[in-house]
């Protein structure tokens, strides 16, 4: 088990230091995120292909091209905002500067990142199915339910990491 210094949080300035580091990491990752759209295209294509792969097992008529998922009734574009990367940015920026051991951070990210990407995959899948079966509810599902749900899962992952892993490792 990793050993934490008992006074890791005792320093007077750990809060401003944490917030400053959080903002620096967050800004850096955000800059990379918005300025490298083209380099994210393979990831979007992979996401689209994997959603197509699962849907085509159960439904006929689906096809995919790049980051477009097509069905006779609709076309579905997976683009920035549908990628779950914004959640990853928050999780990374929240965990990396937290004053715990390197191993704790790695474990937090190793568990948190797949959870967020997995939830995002489910979100895209749900949206595709909503578009297919309940097109009238797509916008509500997209904007008002699944986006906030993604945020909630991100916060939940962070808190669970604090409560289960960091806490036990101390």
């Amino acid at each position: 088990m990793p050993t934490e210094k008992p006074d890791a949080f005792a320093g007077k300035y750990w809060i401003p230091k944490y917030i400053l580091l959080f903002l620096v990491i967050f800004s850096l990752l955000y800059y990379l995120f918005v300025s490298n759209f083209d380099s994210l295209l393979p990831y979007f294509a992979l996401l689209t292909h994997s959603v197509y792969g699962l849907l085509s097992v159960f439904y006929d008529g689906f096809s995919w091209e790049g980051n477009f998922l097509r069905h006779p009734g609709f076309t579905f574009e997976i683009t920035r905002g549908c990628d779950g990367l914004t959640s990853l940015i928050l999780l990374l920026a929240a965990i990396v500067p937290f004053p715990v051991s390197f191993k704790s951070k790695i474990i937090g990210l190793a568990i948190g990142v797949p959870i967020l990407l997995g939830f995002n995959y489910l979100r895209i899948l749900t949206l595709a199915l909503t578009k297919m079966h309940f097109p009238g509810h797509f916008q509500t599902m997209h904007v008002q339910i699944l986006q906030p749900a993604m945020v909630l899962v991100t916060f939940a992952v962070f808190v669970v990491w604090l409560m289960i892993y960091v806490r036990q490792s101390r």
Partner: protein
Amino acid sequence: MSVNPGKHPPIVRFLARFVLSISVCFVLYHFLFPLYALIILAPAKSLVLMTNENLLQITTRPEISFAGFLFEGVEKVRAIRYDAYFVYMNLVITLALISATPDMALLNRIKKSLWALLIMVGVHCAESFVDLAYAGISASPDPDLIPYSDATRSLLFEVNRFYAHMGLFIIPFLIWFLFCHKEILGLAKGVAKASRSKTVGRNEPCPCGSGKKYKVCCGA
């Protein structure tokens, strides 16, 4: 049979409280949204009208994400960047996070929630101003009439883009951390005071999970 909340692990209590808080806040938000949007958009519209002298009137319809811009003799309708219902939703997330954070007295929780609400109102006013100002630029019938410099325009665009991608994440996190850092720290340190539960005896194992007796651990 009654359930003693002190007997559930802290993580279960947190998650249950989180889901309950978000549901309650969301229902309240759903019904209060028209009033909230009215409060937020009034100063934002005045500010846009003050800074863009070519605009005569702005009519907002937040429920369908549209704003009408009346220039001299020309009326244009433009979509606001995002659904206002969605944009203001980070308020719900912030309040739910504060409500769900363990080990806080009720009065303290209410005080922090009110401060958070006040900050969120300010943030939403600023964001609505940026949103409307940017929509006003794209609605302008003559680009020469736009009073903002190129630098201001790109700043408005960048702020808008940042908020669109990250507003739902970073603002609740920062406010939550600023107001509840002691409690968040408590979660990490394992001193989350399940000790506040009156049911823990002095000689019973400490609910923080240290394995020590309560009297020599959190109850000391």
